[in-house]
């Protein structure tokens, strides 16, 4: 679908006493009514509205899960309206087709696209609103709009007198909404590119920010579940005699292959769930353990697989052949807020309070799960207590809906941490064979082959079922899943599409058709493929006797952003001059249209790896809020450090061995290194920052460990022998 800017901005509309500026995707259901809207509500059907009292309301189209969209996107709007971002009322947008991401076709928060794909749309939307108010003021003053300017939710005349938006709303409604008002000259930006405090920080330091788990409705009961610990298994039979005796327990029943306990609160529900005696049918993964998984991956590595990239002439691959195996384990997302959802079903409305990265998918899957029309489902999205990709899968919301339908009351389903760690859609385990040929101190070819499950193949049925028209037979989503598996770029992203130059490059992938639930984990395929690529590049640098920074620079185009960040990080980290006893490692990676390079300073005592400092350079286009960019780099570095040093989900008899933070451990403050972030100045449009800081961390650390010990660690988490 390709849209001109004009087409995008056709949807300006006046409703309910205020003015709503909307964007309509032509031919994509722009007429869809806003859920729950009424003319007197003043609830908008798109990004911006002016209430009759003159207050500007912004419908935040993306979920705030820590990555800063609440601040960043609001700042973009505020800039064009020349008003403080803090004066804008921000609401979590309800689903509307206009809020779908133009690239993904869904109302989704993921892929680090929120700012990249909304920057121009929001600037234009705000500029149009400002222009509309300016025209209204010109009409009221019977003057030319040219001398008027919009500022602080008012239109200001050359003599300094101002008319507030409240006094202009009625006049504006008599005028046609402008469609392509002129955008502010970036040279005049007062807020974009400047430091400012996060807009959601006040609520979050006072405990008043509302997450899904904080929502409640009168008469709601609490549910917890016991799911089969063996992935893919289900309940065979259960004894609830002891559980039923617990005070507060209202109902216990089998649902979704699991057992649900409904009670007056979390504690009685949990106690009763623990008191259940359940016999499980272990399902198809019974017997699967780590040794079998690895053996299976090694078998698959022998297959040719599918070729993803082949650049140059195979005949150039001359000299000594180097071939090594790399591996990463499964990982759980484990956001701090465990999955939860509150669902209330009435005769004509199904309301869902939760935190989700995909509100439109939620509508589709809930409608399918309880057999109601999609138009009846309303998703009240909340602040997300962490996402990292976990909340792209609405499994927990489907469970809550099914239980609510069964008990006939509003139900709040709350997962325990154990549920979360043992029933995630995991970052898949992956194995890779990296190869090269080296001739006369020159690398003549670079090869990579990954063995990994297809995430899209696993999740497409869920998304497709939700996105397709309801009358389509379920076979269609299933066949789409087959298609998705075939083109799943996550299997080699960051390996097959780097800008490294060698005489011959060949990248292949073999699909692991496992039924293990896998999902999108912060930076997705890059999270493992950067580890493979950037560790192996280090091996090659040492093989040919070159400095790891110089070797990389030699093989990256000079005009690329990756070249820039690598140069910058080497300078800022004083590459080659580590403090006594510390050793440096470097990595540079492109992901989500951004480039990030990191230098890690580490030391080793016995078998313990200590990370002292991480210096990071990022190119992410224009940094709308430089402090949010820095915080996302810090965040990704720490998330990446946890994965590089600690995390591993392992299977035994098809069940996840780990269960809570005692055996799925997280980096803590005491272990956190000093982090220094440098942003490459840029006036290019903004690109992603939520994920790209993660991929370079593990290889940069592994490379530092090699520098310290001479041991090349090719498996995560890093463990010295």
């Amino acid at each position, binding site marked *: 679908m390709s849209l001109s800017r004009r087409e995008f901005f056709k949807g300006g509309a006046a409703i309910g006493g205020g003015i709503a500026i909307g964007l309509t995707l032509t031919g994509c259901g722009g007429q869809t009514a806003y859920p729950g809207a009424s003319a007197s509500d003043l609830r908008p059907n798109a990004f911006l509205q002016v209430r009759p009292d003159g207050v500007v309301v912004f419908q935040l189209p993306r979920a705030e899960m820590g990555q800063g969209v609440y601040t960043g996107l609001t700042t973009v709007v505020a800039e064009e309206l020349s008003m403080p971002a803090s004066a804008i009322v921000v609401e979590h947008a309800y689903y509307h087709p206009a809020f779908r991401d133009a690239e993904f076709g869904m109302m989704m928060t993921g892929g680090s696209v929120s700012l990249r794909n909304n920057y121009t749309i929001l600037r234009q939307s705000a500029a149009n609103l400002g222009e509309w108010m300016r025209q209204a003021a010109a009409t009221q003053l019977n003057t030319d709009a040219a001398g008027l300017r919009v500022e602080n939710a008012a239109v200001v005349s050359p003599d300094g007198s101002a008319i507030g938006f409240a006094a202009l709303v009625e006049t504006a409604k008599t005028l046609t909404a402008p469609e392509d008002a002129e955008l502010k000259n970036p040279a005049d930006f007062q807020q974009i590119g400047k430091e400012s405090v996060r807009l959601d920080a006040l609520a979050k330091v006072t405990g008043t920010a509302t997450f899904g788990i904080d929502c409640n409705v009168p008469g709601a009961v609490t549910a917890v579940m016991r799911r089969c610990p063996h992935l893919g298994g289900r309940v065979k039979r259960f004894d609830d005699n002891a559980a039923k005796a617990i005070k507060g327990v209202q109902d216990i029943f089998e649902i979704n292959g699991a057992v649900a306990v409904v009670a007056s609160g*979390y504690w009685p529900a949990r106690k009763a769930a623990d008191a259940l005696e359940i016999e499980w049918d272990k399902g198809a993964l019974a017997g699967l353990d780590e040794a079998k998984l690895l053996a299976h991956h090694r078998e698959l590595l022998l297959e040719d697989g599918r070729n993803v990239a082949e650049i140059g002439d195979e005949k150039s691959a001359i000299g000594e052949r180097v071939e090594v195996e790399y591996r990463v384990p499964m990982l759980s997302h484990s956001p701090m807020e465990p999955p939860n959802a509150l669902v209330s079903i009435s005769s004509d409305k199904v309301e869902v309070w939760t935190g989700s990265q995909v509100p439109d998918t939620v509508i589709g899957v809930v409608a399918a799960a309880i057999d109601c029309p999609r138009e009846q489902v309303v998703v009240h999205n909340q602040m997300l207590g962490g996402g990292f990709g976990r909340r792209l899968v609405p499994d927990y919301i489907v469970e809550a809906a099914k239980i609510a339908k069964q008990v006939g009351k509003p139900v709040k389903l709350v997962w325990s941490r154990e549920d979360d760690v043992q029933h995630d859609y995991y970052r898949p385990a992956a194995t890779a064979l990296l190869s090269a040929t080296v001739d006369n101190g020159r690398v003549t070819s670079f090869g990579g082959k990954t063995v990994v499950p297809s995430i899209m193949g696993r999740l497409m049925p869920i998304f497709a079922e939700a996105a397709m028209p309801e009358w389509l037979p379920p076979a269609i989503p299933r066949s789409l899943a087959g298609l998705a598996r075939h083109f799943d770029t996550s299997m080699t992203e960051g390996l097959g599409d780097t800008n490294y130059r060698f005489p011959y490059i060949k990248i292949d992938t073999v699909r692991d058709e496992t039924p293990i639930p896998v999902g999108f984990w912060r930076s997705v395929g890059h999270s493992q493929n950067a580890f493979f690529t950037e560790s192996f590049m280090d091996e090659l640098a040492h093989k040919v006797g070159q400095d790891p920074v110089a070797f990389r620079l030699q093989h990256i185009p000079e005009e690329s952003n990756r070249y820039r960040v690598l140069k910058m990080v080497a300078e800022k980290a004083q590459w080659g001059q580590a403090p006594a006893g510390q050793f440096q490692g470097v990595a540079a990676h492109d992901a989500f249209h951004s480039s990030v390079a990191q230098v890690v300073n580490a030391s080793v005592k016995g078998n313990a790896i200590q990370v002292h400092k991480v210096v990071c350079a990022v190119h992410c286009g224009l940094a709308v809020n430089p402090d949010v960019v820095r915080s996302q780099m*810090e965040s990704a570095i720490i998330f990446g450090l946890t994965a590089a040093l600690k995390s591993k989900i392992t299977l035994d008899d098809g069940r996840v061995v780990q269960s809570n933070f005692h055996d799925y451990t997280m980096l803590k403050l005491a272990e956190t290194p000093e982090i220094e972030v440098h942003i490459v100045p840029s006036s290019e449009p903004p690109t992603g920052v939520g994920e790209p800081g993660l991929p370079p961390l593990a290889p940069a650390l592994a490379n530092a460990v090699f520098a310290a010990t001479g041991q090349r660690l090719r498996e995560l988490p890093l463990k010295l022998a």
Partner: protein
Amino acid sequence: MSVIEFTLNGRQQRLDVESDTPLLWVIREQLSLTGTKFGCGKGLCGACTVHLDGQPIRSCSFPVSLVAGKRIRTIEGVAPSAEQLHPVQQVWLEGSVPQCGYCQSGQIMAAVALLERNNAPSDADIDSAMSNICRCGTYPRIRTAVKRAGELMQGQGVVGLFDPRAGANGGPDSEQKESQA
């Protein structure tokens, strides 16, 4: 069921509860204060941190029976008034510490407990007192903020050793005044 009395943010509470119920669920579900969060249920992550007579405890694994006659303070009871933030909240805000924010009530409660005892903590003091998990990785900002808040509290003369009998412990907490409610 048994009747348990304690003060919550300065207000006297009298509740009929199952005595093994963790304090967290009493606070969240019965007393409807949702600033204190559920993270792990095993006292491992600290998202549920509250103060018991000024000491940080992990309320998800602390039976309510053990708080009888004690003073409990949650994130809702930290600010001196509706118009004013606690110095720790203030620096947390200015430093844009929170990301997703879910763990931050617990982090702030841990920091307040530390600083009301010791407003010039060393890095080692911070390392051992601030053991709560943050999945977003706000740790570097937390360390900076704790130090800044300590400086702020020194300047305001807020603090010294916590005195359980003094209630307001010389700090901005107004528990003593309200506890007759």
